[in-house]
């Protein structure tokens, strides 16, 4: 995958000859005020239009406007694209665009020898070098010798290119991201047209700025064409074979919002979405708040507890109550989730996980709330736990969460994470009308009505207040079986605890059997993942299988109850490796549930697994048990 592997000895390319690359990883990095995220999303648009498959990931600082030039103020955007199916954001960049010294500093550790680094030398002032923590200029002390450094005065060239527009010097400099974008467009042989159109639409009301950005974009592109710098290679990446259809790029947050909306629609319910701002979960609230004409009421509550309680109140009143947060907020909601368990109401709780404990690292990803989802409540309080595997998968799993919550009258915790929420990938827009419906049923018949009577799935009736003759009271106190009256009877509590437990277990009869993503039940090793580790595990297993190794990939989307055939499936493998972005939570669940000798692989650096890390773990496993 590394550029260096494929282009060695080709430094003196002839003009017009582009080096072929199957896939490429480009990382844009700069100050949080440099427009890096915009640059990345425009490059993404162009990449999609060039018919590459792709995955993107923004990496921005927790501080909103961190002091300029500092390492903690560096904002980055990575895109992995190419001519085959792209499943990860790419382990390491092939091209790094560093718009200031701090951006170079924080990304150096991720680079391999031979990586192309495009540096804005105009920003390499003594002051900026000092702010970035360089004691010496890295361009001069030999520390960049292993890389192909294209040192270009992007700041100066941008100023010259836009001088005619009448912008102030400061405003001129803010166009330098467009110069860099133009340069990278040249590297990958992209058409400038769509981005110019976009720029005209976006900045149409500010003609000078619009003109300047387009001028900078063209100047960057022209620079690439004419510079003839050997450090600045040009590439040709083939289009991917992609299933025909209409596509759009979605982040996990967007796909989640659309899935919840479609789920509510298919259940025949108005959604009441109640949330409190928290990183990285807030984008879900933002997306839904813009879609209030499509059957959702959004409520920004005064705190996390009010958000979940309002969602429960909404479900009680006959709507679909949904609440969303990240780990710290889910902690605050725990008591109320227990209330939803006791009152047996539908409730969807989305947890966009982040690095913990406590406030942890709000903008960094982790999967360390699995135990919280499974067990984090007082009393025996079982809920259904689901996890999405990719940004686009958030759509399907959000629909599943709604379906299960409504059909089984239970809270469902749907786990996403900071990576899934922010990463984007192309999504073939589904025909929503063709997706199955699962209409909610409300009980209306007063004849023999009992609020805690159960059907064969152990599910109690859902009654909308307003229904004549069915007035009843529910609450957090223990209920008498069937009548729902308050009861402290010891035998009744035993019975109700078991009913609540078995009701959730019975959901296993209503979910698909577990399948292998790759491989066969007879393979030697099974890599078991859940959530956003899907991409890197999938790629690592594909690579191994191409080499003829008997490695399978199993990915869990249903974490409680577990799929009914999972135990049998796992028992067929010699070795089970469970990579997780936590200290080993799923591995413990699988070991205790199925008594299988699963081995964990833990990563809690705030970053997704790299494919290479997984391959190394598979190597170790093979060495230990040849």
């Amino acid at each position, binding site marked *: 995958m590394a550029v260096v592997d494929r282009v060695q000895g080709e430094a003196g390319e002839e003009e017009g000859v582009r080096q072929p690359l199957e896939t490429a990883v480009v990382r844009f990095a700069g100050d949080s005020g440099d427009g890096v995220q915009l640059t990345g999303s425009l490059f993404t648009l162009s990449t999609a239009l060039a*018919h590459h498959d792709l995955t993107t990931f923004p990496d921005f600082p927790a501080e909103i406007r961190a002091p300029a030039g500092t390492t903690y103020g560096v904002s980055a955007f990575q895109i992995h694209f190419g001519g085959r199916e792209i499943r990860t954001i790419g382990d390491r960049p092939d091209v790094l665009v560093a718009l200031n010294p701090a951006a170079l500093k924080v990304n150096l550790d991720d680079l391999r020898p031979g990586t192309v680094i495009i540096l804005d030398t105009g920003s390499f002032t003594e002051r900026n070098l000092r702010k970035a923590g360089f004691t010496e200029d890295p361009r001069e002390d030999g520390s960049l010798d292993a890389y192909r450094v294209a040192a270009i005065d992007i700041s100066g060239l941008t100023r010259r290119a836009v001088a005619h527009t009448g912008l102030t010097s400061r405003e001129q400099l803010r166009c330098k991201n467009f110069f860099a974008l133009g340069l990278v467009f040249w590297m990958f042989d992209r058409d400038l047209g769509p981005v110019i159109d976009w720029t005209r639409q976006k900045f149409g009301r500010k003609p000078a700025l619009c003109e300047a950005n387009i001028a900078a974009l063209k100047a960057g592109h022209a620079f690439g064409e004419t510079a003839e710098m050997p450090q600045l290679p040009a590439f040709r990446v083939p289009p991917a074979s992609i299933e025909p259809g209409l596509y759009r790029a979605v982040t996990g947050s967007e796909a989640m919002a659309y899935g919840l909306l479609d789920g509510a629609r298919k259940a025949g319910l108005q959604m009441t979405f109640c949330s409190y701002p928290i990183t990285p979960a807030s984008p879900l609230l933002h997306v839904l708040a813009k879609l209030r*004409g499509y059957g959702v009421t959004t409520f920004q509550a005064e705190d996390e507890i*009010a958000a979940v*309680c309002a969602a429960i109140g909404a479900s009680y009143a006959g709507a679909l109550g949904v609440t969303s947060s990240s780990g710290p907020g889910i902690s605050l909601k725990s008591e109320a989730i227990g*209330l939803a368990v006791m009152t047996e109401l539908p409730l969807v709780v989305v947890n966009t996980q982040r690095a913990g404990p406590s406030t942890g690292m709000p903008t960094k990803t982790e999967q360390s709330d699995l135990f919280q989802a499974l067990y984090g409540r007082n009393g025996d309080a079982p809920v259904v736990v689901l996890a999405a595997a990719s940004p686009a998968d958030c759509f399907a799993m959000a629909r599943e969460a709604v379906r299960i919550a409504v059909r089984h009258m239970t809270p469902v915790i749907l786990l996403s994470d900071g990576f899934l929420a922010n990463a984007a990938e192309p999504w073939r827009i589904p025909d929503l009308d063709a997706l199955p419906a699962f209409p909610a049923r409300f009980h209306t018949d007063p004849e023999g009505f009992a609020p805690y009577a159960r059907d064969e799935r152990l599910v109690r009736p859902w009654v909308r207040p307003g229904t004549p003759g069915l007035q009843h009271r529910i609450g957090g*106190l223990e209920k008498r079986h069937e009548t729902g009256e308050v009861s402290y009877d010891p035998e009744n509590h035993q019975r109700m605890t078991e009913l609540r437990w078995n009701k959730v277990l019975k959901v296993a009869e209503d979910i698909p059997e577990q399948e292998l993503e790759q491989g066969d039940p007879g393979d030697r090793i099974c890599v078991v993942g859940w959530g956003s580790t899907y991409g890197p595990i999938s790629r690592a297993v594909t690579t191994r299988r191409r080499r003829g190794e008997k490695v399978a990939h199993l990915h869990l989307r249903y974490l409680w109850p577990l799929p009914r055939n999972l135990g049998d499936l796992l028992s067929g493998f010699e070795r089970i490796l469970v990579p997780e972005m936590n200290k080993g939570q799923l591995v413990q669940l699988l070991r205790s549930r199925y008594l299988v000798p699963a081995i964990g692989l833990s990563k809690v650096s705030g970053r997704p697994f790299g494919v290479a890390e997984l391959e190394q773990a598979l190597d170790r496993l093979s060495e230990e048990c040849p």
Partner: protein
Amino acid sequence: MNAPARPLQPKDYASDQEVRWCAGCGDYAVLKAVERVLAEIGADPANTVFVSGIGCAARFPYYVATYGFHGIHGRAPAIATGVKLANPELDVWVIGGDGDMLSIGANHLAHTLRRNVDLTLLLFNNEVYGLTKGQLSPTAPLGSRTPSSPLGSVENPLSACRFALAAGARFVARGIDTQKDLPAILRAAHDHPGTGFVEILQNCIVYNDGAFAEITERAVAAERQVHPVHGEPLLFGAERRKGLRLAADGSGLEVVEIGPDGEGMEEVLRHDRTNLALAGMLAALEPPMPVAIGVIYDNPAPVSYERALRGQEEGERERLGEADLGAMLRQGPVWMVTA
């Protein structure tokens, strides 16, 4: 089909559940008052919901023959907000105590009031934690000796009505559990289109008996209570020979004695239920001044919170016309991949 065939009587609103408050608890009187109001307004039990938190008062929903939700400690206003968001047509009452609503759930109370959700919200204030056996509550007077403050409380108490006004409540009233015209106050709160907030001074016979005796005892009631009536002078006392006027130094209200020929009457303030400044001064009155009992403030907002939200959503649906989610997904930056 929803309308009852014959007018329901107060007793028709009692559920079949055995009431389990202590004998002599003030809550019984409030329950009777609420049942009377429900009968008066012809409440449809199927369309009425009582929501509560945790505490003695919070058992209330079990005893009313409507829909009911006994929530968790402090969260009743939030649950009730969710009920109204989902179905604004439901008539929702919220019941809680001083610990429920002013301690663990004070945040929800404040925000529900400022949003002005259309609820009738009754705060039973007995200045003590009853269900947990007598600890200090946020409204307990300085010096209160309780199991959790055996040396006497050194905390300043919170005033429920001043809290409500500060939070932006558009209806604030105070009543007494055994007061004859409590139903009229509750009715006014219910009729208010928005959050109708009522603090009910409620006696806890076990842990805080006589907490409000200095206001409610027959011998002192006339001197220690002023019952504001919109448009009427603020008079009190056995012979109604005392009035409230603005203190010359602007510090609040003071008592003016009315002379035999009405001297001083011209200085007595007339109650204006829409006057927020006056409401603040009335709500702040404490013994030895007369305590304001009745509707202190009633100034409806043009629209309640959930109606405003629904209005926005209807506007959005009109703007979108036939457009559905599927059509929305096909708009914006999309691209076609062909075979």
